[in-house]
């Protein structure tokens, strides 16, 4: 912050309702001069988008994908090549958005950087962000582009049968797009990304982001985007299906999971959280390996477990939790997510997370 910016910020802190004209008078400069300083304060993360509410100095930035999730859950075991009676649900989701919302529920102030279209799905996303008190000031709405959509069919028990994504809009999150937001990104306490971002953009972040980076891999076809420069990551969260692409080893059990995680750590990643459906979850760094075998829990929808675990790890990092605590919290968060038919469990708070952790580990 410049001296002038600091001065303006302190006047705003004293009187949040102060107008730009009044600030101009106080500072002895023009109103447009004030506007420029305010714009810079916003870019640097000291002020929020609307109403000049002063942000607390610590916040996280999430850069990733938004999706309209449209999913059909069959009433009975799915019959292939046929129309099955069931329920079709719509939910605003997407890895980045789910991580941002999980963080919001855990009380972590965060900004969500993403892109969406001017279509019905885009409008629904905006309304949803408002309803959930998410900050999308730094996201952008594009005209004449379809919002990202993820379409999937689940068995009655929650296992996915097949999923399809129409997500080319994410290509709009270019390095240039992030350059405009660079100051704000580098004022975060942590930056969280998902592999929906184009590879170029991920590489730009590896090069320019000065804050601890957390990444969640999504999909076999996209996980590879994280590879070049992956050593910049503080933490990588991934699923068994992505393990081969990211480590060269396919994680199928505890043993192979540890091997896969070690490979990734050897590349320079500090922490790895790897989960294998029906088997368990592993949290590993240079010195620790914590494996949590899968517990028989009421699973209603596995979609969202990874985002929840990632958010929990970011929260734990912010609170400077121990390695063991972090792993347990990530594990508990994943289960909380799986219990809910929604990808983000409505009831998630730091209290319910602690309760779940207590239930699982004591």
């Amino acid at each position, binding site marked *: 912050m410049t001296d002038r910016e600091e001065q303006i910020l302190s006047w705003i802190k004293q009187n949040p309702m102060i107008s730009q004209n009044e600030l101009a008078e106080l500072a002895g400069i023009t109103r447009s001069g004030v506007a420029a300083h305010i714009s810079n304060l916003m870019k640097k993360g000291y002020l929020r988008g609307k109403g000049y509410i002063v942000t607390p100095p610590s916040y996280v930035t999430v850069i990733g994908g938004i999706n309209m999730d449209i999913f059909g*859950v069959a009433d009975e075991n799915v019959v292939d090549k046929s129309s099955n009676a069931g329920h079709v649900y719509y939910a605003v989701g997407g890895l980045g958005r789910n991580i941002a919302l999980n963080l919001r529920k855990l009380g972590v102030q965060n900004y969500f950087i993403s892109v969406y279209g001017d279509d019905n799905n885009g409008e629904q996303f905006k309304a949803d962000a408002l309803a959930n008190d998410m900050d999308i000031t730094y996201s952008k709405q594009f005209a004449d582009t379809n919002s990202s*959509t993820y*379409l999937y069919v689940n068995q009655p028990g929650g296992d996915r049968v097949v*999923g*399809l994504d129409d997500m080319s809009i994410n290509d709009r999150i270019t390095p240039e797009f992030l350059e405009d937001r660079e100051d704000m990104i580098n004022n975060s306490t942590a930056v969280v990304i998902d592999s929906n971002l184009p590879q170029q953009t991920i590489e730009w972040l590896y090069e320019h982001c000065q804050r601890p980076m957390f990444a969640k891999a999504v999909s076999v*076809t996209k996980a590879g985007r994280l590879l070049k420069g992956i050593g910049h990551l503080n933490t990588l969260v991934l699923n068994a299906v992505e393990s081969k692409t990211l480590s060269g080893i396919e994680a199928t059990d505890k043993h192979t999971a540890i091997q896969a995680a070690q490979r990734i750590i050897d590349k320079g990643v500090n922490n790895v959280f790897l989960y294998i459906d029906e088997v368990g979850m592993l949290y590993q760094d240079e010195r620790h390996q914590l494996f949590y075998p899968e517990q028989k829990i009421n699973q209603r929808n596995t979609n969202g477990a990874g985002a929840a675990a990632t958010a929990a790890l970011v929260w734990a990092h912010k609170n400077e939790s121990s390695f063991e605590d972090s792993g347990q919290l990530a594990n508990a968060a994943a289960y909380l997510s799986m219990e809910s038919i929604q990808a983000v469990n409505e009831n998630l708070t730091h209290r319910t997370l602690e309760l779940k952790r207590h239930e699982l580990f004591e």
Partner: protein
Amino acid sequence: MNYSQTVSPDDYVVVIGGMNMDIFGMPSDKVVDRDSNPGIVGMSVGGVGQNIAQNLAHLEVPTYLITVYGDDYNGQLLKTSCENNHIHLDYAEQLAHQRSSTYMYITDETGDMLVGVNDMDICKQITPEFLKQRLDFINDATICLLDANLDPSTLNWIGAHVTAPLFGDTVSTIKAPHFDSILDKMTVLKPNALEASLLSGVKVTDLNTAKHAAEVLLDKGIANIFISMGAQGILCANKDDMAFVKPFKTTIVNANGAGDCGMAAITWSYFDESDRPLHEIGRIAQAASSIALESDKSVPDITPKLVQQKLMSDTIAN
């Protein structure tokens, strides 16, 4: 709400059936099971009742769609779509706290269906009580068209209380039997070969077996039966007459929707001229189906003029 005082000054058709949001996804490459597979997602307004109503509206028949939809986001989209297509929703109802009917499916990279989920519970709300309030309006219609998305109990009630001529679309082999108890009330029914086999008990494989099935169905009381046999043709029959009409020469772009368009054309034919010979009705149906097959949309941009043109200029396939 009591609609019995409302009388429409002009002739009109009433369609009682389902209205869906269809959502489909097609991957760009072979599917990698249980994962994110890149592709294209599309959405369009569907449902057999709605599709037929839309075709009828394009064919300039004043059409009232009696259906239900939810007060969710899709409900609004469905309502707007009907308004844009001049389908009257005066006697439809938007239900609070209900999910609009949806059909979602994912295909493989060639377009063949892999799996689908239909969520059409809301159609159960088209009950006898619901229709009773609209009975006078329904009975003043020139034609009352039904689709098999309706519950059997609703169809039975319609059979017992509706005096307007009843036309039926069988929708699918699973739903076609909904018509079982009211076959003798039907003025027109248009099943495909499989559905006709199911309803008649006669396995339809060729023209001869189709004729046999048609006779059985006419004996059950259907006044006019149209058995659609895909590329082979359409068999049209009533007690006095029988005609088999082959398809028009067509370059197939998208097979989705041809059946609904054919049903709408048959309805349009009766609406326009109730005494048309069966053979001509068959030609009209095939002309419409051909137009639908050549369109990439499930409801083609059909008009009466296009149908006339197709009838006059195109040739029947050999």
